[in-house]
């Protein structure tokens, strides 16, 4: 009946804005009601638009055009005062921009030979500790970590062995950055490989293959001892790994869910509650999930080694907003439940998810 259904969180569409270009990524500007849309204009140039949320409209504050289409961006490695935007473009360039003076980038490097598919930043925004770093994953099969204070060369490079055929890297994410030394990078590839690189020991800590290309990976929090990792893939499947207990041979325990028939493009955890996350799909739908921990998070196997126990997932709400894939999604770090999503129908939508306090 409808009454209990209305007790669940509702996804309310607040504002919708039609764009004249293909939007690949959208991000909230921290500590503000402003958001950025990054994408590719029809004439093959890159577009950055800055909008402000006013009343029931999005007001365009600024539009910046760049020579190459932009695929992804992050504020993760910048301080709260500076709020510089790091972007990866179709040509493999990593740039960091001061949006007040966007003519010349603050930092620029041709990091990859091919398009940078995914970017993440850590160490900024007053969250966590340690050096600010940016990681980029590219179609050329490499994953590189950059420090904005070091020009031209990355501080870490994860590349295929010489002579081996490369696979596109589709997504990257930082995690485990709970003190100044510890950090991991998780990368997902188009053949279903997920690899976890430990930056402190500069080694491969874990890898697995989930059979279908990995579209998006995210840790529930970057700045804590790694807790959970969600990896989404093609054909509507996603996996949640419990990262607290690593078994020597079996790796991390996981639970998987097949939500939709189509690709799951993005996963984003709610900044205010790390057990709630939203997945966006190729059919234009959004699913809101809650993870429930099992009674015991780890148990001993037959040889006495510790292995993790995966919990369970429940679907809180789902809504279909568009007929085209929703390729990007971002929660506002300042207002709980406020999120923005960009879809391939050239529309950016600001949504409000209600009743998250009651979960």
């Amino acid at each position, binding site marked *: 009946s409808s009454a209990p259904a209305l007790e669940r969180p509702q996804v309310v569409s607040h504002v919708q804005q039609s764009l004249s270009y293909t939007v690949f990524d959208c991000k909230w500007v921290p500590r503000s009601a402003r958001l950025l849309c990054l994408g590719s204009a029809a004439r093959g140039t890159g577009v950055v638009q800055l909008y402000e949320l006013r009343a029931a409209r999005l007001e365009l504050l600024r539009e910046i055009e760049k020579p190459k289409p932009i695929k992804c961006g992050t504020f993760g490695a910048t301080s709260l005062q500076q709020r510089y935007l790091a972007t990866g473009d179709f040509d493999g360039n990593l740039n960091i921009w001061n949006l007040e003076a966007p003519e010349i980038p603050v930092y620029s490097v041709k990091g990859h030979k091919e398009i940078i598919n995914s970017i993440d930043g850590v160490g900024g925004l007053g969250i966590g500790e*340690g050096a600010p770093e940016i990681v980029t994953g590219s179609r050329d099969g490499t994953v590189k970590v950059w420090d904005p204070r070091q020009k031209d060369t990355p501080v870490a490079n994860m590349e295929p062995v010489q002579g081996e055929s490369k696979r596109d890297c589709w997504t990257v994410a930082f995690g485990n950055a709970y003190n100044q030394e510890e950090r991991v990078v998780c990368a997902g590839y188009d053949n279903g490989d997920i690899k976890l690189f430990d930056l402190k020991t500069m080694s491969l800590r874990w890898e697995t293959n989930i059979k279908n290309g990995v579209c998006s990976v995210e840790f529930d929090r970057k700045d804590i001892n790694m807790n959970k990792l969600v990896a989404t893939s093609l054909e509507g499947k996603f996996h949640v790994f419990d990262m607290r207990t690593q078994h020597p041979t079996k790796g991390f325990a996981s639970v998987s869910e097949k939500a939709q028939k189509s690709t799951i493009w993005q996963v984003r955890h709610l900044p205010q509650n790390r057990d709630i996350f939203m997945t966006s799909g190729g059919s234009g739908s959004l699913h809101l999930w809650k993870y429930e921990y099992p009674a015991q998070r780890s148990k001993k196997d037959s040889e006495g080694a510790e292995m993790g126990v995966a919990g369970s997932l429940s679907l809180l709400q789902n809504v279909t907003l568009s007929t085209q894939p929703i390729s990007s999604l971002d929660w506002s770090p300042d207002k709980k439940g406020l999120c923005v999503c960009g879809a391939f129908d050239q529309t950016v939508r600001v949504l409000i998810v209600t009743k998250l306090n009651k979960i």
Partner: protein
Amino acid sequence: MPVWLREHRWHQTLTAVHLSLPLRGARATAANIFCSERYLKVSIPPFLFEAILYAPIDDKSSTAKIKNGNIFFTLYKKDPAMWDSLTLENADKEILQNIRENAVLKAQERAKEETEAKKVTKQEHKKYALEATMKLEEAERKRIEDLKEKERQKVTKELELWKKQQKDAENYKSIQKEVELNQEIWQLKERKNEKMNKTRVPNEGASKTRLKPTTGCHGSSSMFSQNLKEEQIPSPRSAATIKVNFTPRVFPTALRESRVAEEEEWLHKQAEARRTITADLSELEDLKEEEKNPDWLKDKGNKMFAMGNYLAAVNAYNLAVRLNNKLPLLYLNRAACHLKLRNLHKAIADSSKALELLTPPVPDNENARVKAYVRRGTAFCQLELYTEGLQDYEAALKIDPKNKNIEKDAEKIRSLIQGTMQGS
């Protein structure tokens, strides 16, 4: 013969006639009474009573009550007038007959009308019921919409409130900053004055100890806090590389690209083929052990081919085929032999058979398929069936577009075809 009921009693008023009819033990129901404007009949076999009324009555409003073995009729007259008698006396037989018939017809018509009326009312009732349910559902839907709308508005209001708070907080912060800055500048000025006073005593030091107030008021506070922070951030880590291996697969395609079903089928077929032995034991008894192995025979055939002994190769392949007719490579190689021997039709037949067995088309059997097409194409061309030959060459090119030889040969055939077309 019906038994006539004649013992009836009647009396009348100006507007109605009351008739009572004893039933003599028979039981009457409504079905036994037939009444029209001028004709009244009660038929309870074997009893019969009929009356052709003196004057017309309103048969719709007239009633009949069955009680205590009697029927009491109350017939309302159409014209209020006193009747001389109940029935029409001295009436002509024909007139009577007519009246009877008319009565029956009228009754039938009325029955029809009634059913029609019933139908119409039924329709209307249905429509009404439908409309009522629709209204209910509309109401329900509206209720849910309203709830949603309310949520939306509530949430929008909250958002606006939050934004206002943000703005106010920012304004407050900036005002505070200004105040702090002013204080700092004042403090700096104080310090400067002090220092200048101090250094006035030793004259030389004055110029050196000029306190530099930082340029731009806004920079000062943030610079101080930034310096503090920078001390806490570690230096960039030393560069290193991690080498990565990717998960291998039997077929070098990701799951999304592979045609797993077909590849499975191909593997399955190969396995099956290996196991089939179409043995005809009687003839093969005098063969050596190794000669019964199709693979061994295939190798033998290949060797013969390499040496140029095409007939022997064909023999070897023939025997192998008799043992196992599901191995495509046997037919493929035999086709090559036939080509060399200029048995063109046999070459075509073998290449075709090989192609048949090389389904489903997967990357694994690409090479074999290319060879089969090329061999068959060659045979066609040598038979001067150039169009068929070109078709096969193009099929081969489709599988292996990078092969220059096949391309060259295809070009040659094309020009040949065009040459013959122009010539004829």
